């Protein structure tokens, strides 16, 4: 098994290639060739597919890409070459279980299989969303207090003590530590002090991450993000995040956000890159688990048809061929206080539940505004658990999603649907949904039940 020193060595000595040529000649051209070779096509009306042959083809294409391309170091403009044996070793060593949190609140993340008897786990929070300091604590509590939420995540503090946070500025250290102080405080407030976290979200560069590796902030039983860059790229700053966890023991969550409609072209190519990304991230991100977060090139959201297809394709490819721990970010286009947010959340929850993924959410309003609350996370968990209890087939899941799409797809052709900020949908003292928001949630739940979902 390679270690980080081998990765750094190869980033220094691998073949030189300009970044533009990596993007075009390696990523784009290889993707095109593999999509053609394996005859990969997506069907906008079959977003959740039980086509085992298609899943196998996507897996093989992603594997071939990982072996053929390896990774690219943006820091040194060199290719980090990886052999087939090393990719295989990475697959063999993918953790099948990771314990997060401690004491009675500990949860075991596990590699899900298709039709797994065990229910998915849920991270509650709006990952990476900019949240003003004055509502940060109330916002994270709104998720932590939800009984179905197993693990906590959060947004990003964009100002501390009235001062703007800038990436790489010393204030990033303060903001990351402040975020974690609020998180720990919130967990204590709801009586779940041992709950595991995916946090240090305010650490946009490696600076905050380094500053938070301390038992008072991010414990060794918590996880942090180790991002990959689009596509199949790393740099020394992000490798530093992974290396920072080595002796300390934090859990590494790889974050490759494949752009659907980007260098990989359409959904089929994007799924291939996503599969390859995890195989590379096993090694370069020292990943303990993987975040699934394809981004639509124009709409951002994970609830478009093509992104839902990529989520299903990627999750299935691993669940069928090499189960690993995958946690899917749910990023709806719509924001809190809108029914569309709840429909988008339900569609994402169904797709992920049947695709072998755990769930994290929701990054409402594209994660661009503090228009998010614990209520949509409650629905996310309820819908996913209902899908699991019903032993929903791929075909049934697809039928549900096709019924949900017409209820929200209009948000992609209008000027967004951002909804309202947290403090306008929740009572921030009692930390409970305002009546109109609670009523919307109840109405959507009724609709979902009428559609046949056993909530």
């Amino acid at each position: 098994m390679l270690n980080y020193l081998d990765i750094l060595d190869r980033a220094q000595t691998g073949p030189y290639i300009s970044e533009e040529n990596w993007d075009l000649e390696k990523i784009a051209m290889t993707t095109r060739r593999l999509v053609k070779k394996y005859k990969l096509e997506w069907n906008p009306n079959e977003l959740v597919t039980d086509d085992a042959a298609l899943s196998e083809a996507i897996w093989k294409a992603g594997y071939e890409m990982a072996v053929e391309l390896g990774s690219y170091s943006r820091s040194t403009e060199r290719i980090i070459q990886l052999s087939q044996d090393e990719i295989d070793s990475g697959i063999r060593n993918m953790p099948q279980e990771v314990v997060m949190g401690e004491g009675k609140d500990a949860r075991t993340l596990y590699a899900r299989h298709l039709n797994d008897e065990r229910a998915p786990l849920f991270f509650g929070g709006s990952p990476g969303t900019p949240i003003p300091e004055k509502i940060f604590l109330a916002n994270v509590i709104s998720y932590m207090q939800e009984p179905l939420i197993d693990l906590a995540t959060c947004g990003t503090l964009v100002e501390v003590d009235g001062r703007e946070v800038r990436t790489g500025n010393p204030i990033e250290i303060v903001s990351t530590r402040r975020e974690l102080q609020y998180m720990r405080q919130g967990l204590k407030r709801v009586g779940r002090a041992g709950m595991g976290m995916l946090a240090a979200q305010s650490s946009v560069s490696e600076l905050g991450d380094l500053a938070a590796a301390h038992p008072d902030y991010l414990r060794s039983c918590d996880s942090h993000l180790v991002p990959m860059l689009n596509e199949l790229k790393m740099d020394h700053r992000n490798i530093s995040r992974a290396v920072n966890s080595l002796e300390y023991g934090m859990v590494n969550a790889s974050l490759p956000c494949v752009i659907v409609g980007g260098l990989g072209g359409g959904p089929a190519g994007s799924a291939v890159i996503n599969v390859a990304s995890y195989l590379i991230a096993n090694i370069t991100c020292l990943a303990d688990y993987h975040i699934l977060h394809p981004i639509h090139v124009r709409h951002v959201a994970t609830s478009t048809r093509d992104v839902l297809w990529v989520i299903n394709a990627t999750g299935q490819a691993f669940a069928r061929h090499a189960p690993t721990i995958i946690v899917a970010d749910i990023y709806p286009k719509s924001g809190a206080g809108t029914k569309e947010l709840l429909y988008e959340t339900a569609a994402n929850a169904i797709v992920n539940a049947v695709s072998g993924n755990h769930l994290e959410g929701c990054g409402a309003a594209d994660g661009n505004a503090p228009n998010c609350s614990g209520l949509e996370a409650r629905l996310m968990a309820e819908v996913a658990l209902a899908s699991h209890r019903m032993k929903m087939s791929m075909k049934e899941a697809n039928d549900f999603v096709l019924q949900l799409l017409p209820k929200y797809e209009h948000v992609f052709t209008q000027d967004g649907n951002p909804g309202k900020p947290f403090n306008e949908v929740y009572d921030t003292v009692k930390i409970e949904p305002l009546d109109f928001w609670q009523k919307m949630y109840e109405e959507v739940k009724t609709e979902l039940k009428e559609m046949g979902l056993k909530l």
Partner: protein
Amino acid sequence: MPESTHLQAIATAIIDGEAEDAMEATKAALEDNVDPMEILNRGLMDAADEVGKRFERSEYFLPELMLTGRALKGAMEIVKPVLLEKYADNDSQVKGKVVSATVHTDIHDIGKNIVSSMLTAAGFEVTDMGVDVPIKSIIDKAEEIEARVICLSALLTTSMPFMKDLIQLLDARGIRQKYIVLVGGASVTESWAMHIGADGTARNAADAVKLARAKIGA
């Protein structure tokens, strides 16, 4: 060969993103005395517009945009000297020089790459400085190449303040009025752009091109 056949060959090469074919077709058209202005407008720019439309319809993706950008660059290198010689007083065919960059501390480049490709395809001469670029370097480059437009990108909310810093530095240097500063990125809003004193923002790459054209009067 008739002019229309030459122009069609150029357009096809641009739409297909074939740089060598585009250069060969441009050379052949010039050798057959096709007006360089016709090559530019009906061969290159119309084809580039078509590529932009296909991208908006999700028929084309980022690689196609980048390949078209390469093909356009190659063909422009051939046609531009002839064009300038024939229309010596009219250098407006290059709509303007643009410096684009993802600002200091931010390493996300997909959005910036798309806008750069679309601007190139629309006839702007784009100098793409890459990612994590210090604001001083961006301004120095704009001064060096006599750019008209500075396009700044940031995905990270905590990198967006560097856009404001750049505008303030332009002010401090007394050269703010020389530049049209456009800002963009997933978290950038119209109100943020106004707040920092930028000249505009756009929701997507196609709108960014329209905005740049409108601001520069092209």
